């Protein structure tokens, strides 16, 4: 007496096979290995981004695209950036992202454009009106990690890989996945004289 169990078995085997194939395809497509050590040549290449002559916007090195833009899309790098933000005292000028002596990131108003390279350049080389250069205090990889994180603070579209709140005092609403977009929807904000002089 089998009572349909044979059929049942055949179907479940077929379904399992289909699942395995679909699964394997999905896995191949979605794999996201976490790199703890970046090869020194790749790191060295990170220094070789090109910047427009006015210091706003530019192009990252080719290898950065080949790696899949790790400093903007990889959760591990973004969380490292979040850690560096505190470790290198960014909040002494930029606060929790809302700005203080330095400009705010949270409003999505980027004085030198929202591209990561611009932010990298700002951190590495410094900017007029008080932004110091960090090239002697951080490695270029750390600068990219930090830049990727800073960019998510004022992002217009939420990133899946964005960091969560820190285990620290509460200073601003935690829904920090795309705050700039919310502010942007509130209408044009114009120039920001309160955030220090424009370049």
């Amino acid at each position, binding site marked *: 007496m089998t009572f*349909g169990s044979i059929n*049942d078995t055949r179907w479940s085997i077929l*379904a399992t096979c289909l699942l395995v194939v679909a699964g394997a395809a999905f*896995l191949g497509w979605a794999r996201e290995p*976490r790199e703890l050590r970046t090869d020194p040549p790749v790191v060295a290449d990170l220094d070789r981004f090109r910047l427009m002559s006015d210091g706003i916007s530019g192009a990252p090195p080719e290898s950065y695209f080949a790696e899949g833009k790790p400093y903007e899309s990889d*959760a591990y790098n973004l969380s490292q950036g979040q850690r560096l933000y505190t470790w290198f005292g960014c909040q002494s000028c930029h606060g929790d992202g809302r700005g203080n002596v330095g400009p705010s990131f949270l409003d999505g108003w980027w004085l030198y454009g929202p591209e990561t390279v611009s932010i990298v350049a700002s951190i590495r080389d410094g900017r007029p009106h008080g932004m110091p250069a960090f090239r002697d205090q951080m490695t270029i990889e750390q600068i990219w990690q930090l830049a990727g994180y800073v960019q998510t603070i004022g992002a217009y579209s939420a990133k*899946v*890989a964005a960091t969560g709140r820190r285990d620290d005092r509460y200073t601003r609403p*935690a829904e920090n996945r795309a705050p700039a977009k919310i502010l942007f929807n509130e209408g044009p904000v114009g120039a920001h004289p309160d955030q220090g002089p424009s370049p």
Partner: protein
Amino acid sequence: MTTRHEGEDLRDRGLDEMELDRRLSQTWSTPAGLWGALSTVDHKIIGRRYIVTAFVFLALGGILAMAMRLQLSQPEARFIGPDRYNQIFTMHGTNMMFLFAVPVMEAMAVYLVPLMVGTRNIAFPRLNAFSYWMYLAGGLLLWIAFAVDTGPDVGWFAYVPLAGPQYAAGKRADIWAQMITFTEVSALAVAVEIVVTVFKQRAPGMSLDRIPLFVWSMLVTSFLIIMAMPAIMIASSALILDRLVGTHFFNPAEGGDVLLWQHLFWFFGHPEVYIIFLPAVGMVSTIVATFTRRPVFGYLAMVMALIATGVLAFGLWVHHMFVAGLPRLGESFFTASSMAIAIPAGLQIFCWLATMWAGRPVFKTPFLFVIGFMVIFVIGGMTGVMVASVPFDTQVHDTYFVVAHFHYVLVGGAVFPLLGAIYYWFPKITGRMMSETLGRWAFGLIFTGFNLTFFPMHILGLQGMPRRIYTYQPEMPWSGLNMFVSLSAVILAAGFLLFFIDAIRSAVSGTAAPANPWEASTLEWATSSPPPPYNFARLPVVGSLEPLFNNPETLPVASGLSVDRRELIVSSVVEALPEARESSPGNSIWPLWSALATTVLLIWSIFTPWAVVWGSIPVSIALIGWFWPKGTPEDDA
């Protein structure tokens, strides 16, 4: 489909055996084909799926264990890096606890409890189907995440803040927490089904003192699940909220507390051990009774021990936190309570020993696994007494001593009885016998391999080797024993491989099994192997604790049930006096849709809190579709 005679349904009283079987099959069987397979609510088909799926997860978890043993076989080995290793041990623990141990015990109950209490299907069969799909979805979520390198890497107990928003980057910890939700939903659903089945669907005459011990153990286990699992639901939800919307449950800077997680987790986590162990106790009792040819000694004492264990299980959670810095007075209390649980455990051991002594043992494979259980589990119990002592624990906590201890308890205490139970009930489930020769070999290899693998870990722990390290330095005195352990693990793996080969081979071409091959005493052996879709052509009437011992030739049965609709008997809680002929829901695809909708909601909510709002709409639709009457005979009273 059904023939109605002027509003009067057709009863089984006038029908001869052939006609009865034919009509019942028509009413109860699962249609062939994919649709039938997806919409079945037969507890036997679902239970079988559950068991097979759980064993697949066991095999996968075993592969992870072997990977870890490869990495640890030599100092500073580089087979696996720290990131992958952390995922592997987290996956191993999570998989074994949430996807193997608990589900497999419930799976056995889903299959066996309705048969053992003499009814035709589990209570809430559609919920049962739903619970399986949820379990499968949760397992797939975890394993697919692991395969794409986003497997959880925070340990199976996901201590905050390491699993919290700041230190666990990406979605890895969220996947862990949400996988918990999947398996909890499925476990809670099955627990409810079993409680109601045992309370209300027992065969007429099966009063409380005639319930088989396995059913008792599953009843107590189900209550443990019902009381313990909400704690982990609250904990894992709080973790996801902390990570996703920035609540502060575990953030000490804003009034949260790191130890709150540990309290909540272990308030669930310790009963979890008994959720795994108590069903095994029931299996041991069943196998001992059958293979010593006498009832288990001290039925009442055994039941009381089960209940006492269940109650005490909630008073021990702090012994997982002895080194977290809690007040000493509290720790002393938990030392006493943790030691005290050895008393009901000891009582059960003594009762089994008395049964073996008084009975006439027959050394078949299931019984061999029970003997292996006695040898190994008592060691696990002894080391359990050791770690219950606070000062002792401060030296062995989070070392390989504890790894050894809980493998002795969980593998020795649960997997050995489970393997015995598979050998024991395999003929009932498949209609075929497993090989006695291969079974003995499998037992020998697993028993030897297990002890050689895990016993040296006690010593490693006392030599100072901590848990969850991906490697160790050559100057530490651990490399010899680790190599020995890794080699022994190969023996253990070979034993399991042999078991799997035997199971697959026997399922395909084993010798056909009679209805009661072991001459056992409980009701599942009163029907054919495998049982028909309706389990019993006429529901049995029970007059003693061992119905088939007393009269192995004829089965007293009840009649008067309808054959037009799926019908079974509802009986009273204590005396099991028949109260109603109740219908049992028919096949439905809606549990699958509901599970899919819930899966979408739960996975989506890892990414945005709004998923809870939008995702609940399809869930509601699916649930309404599930419960809306379809005008079938089962829907009407």
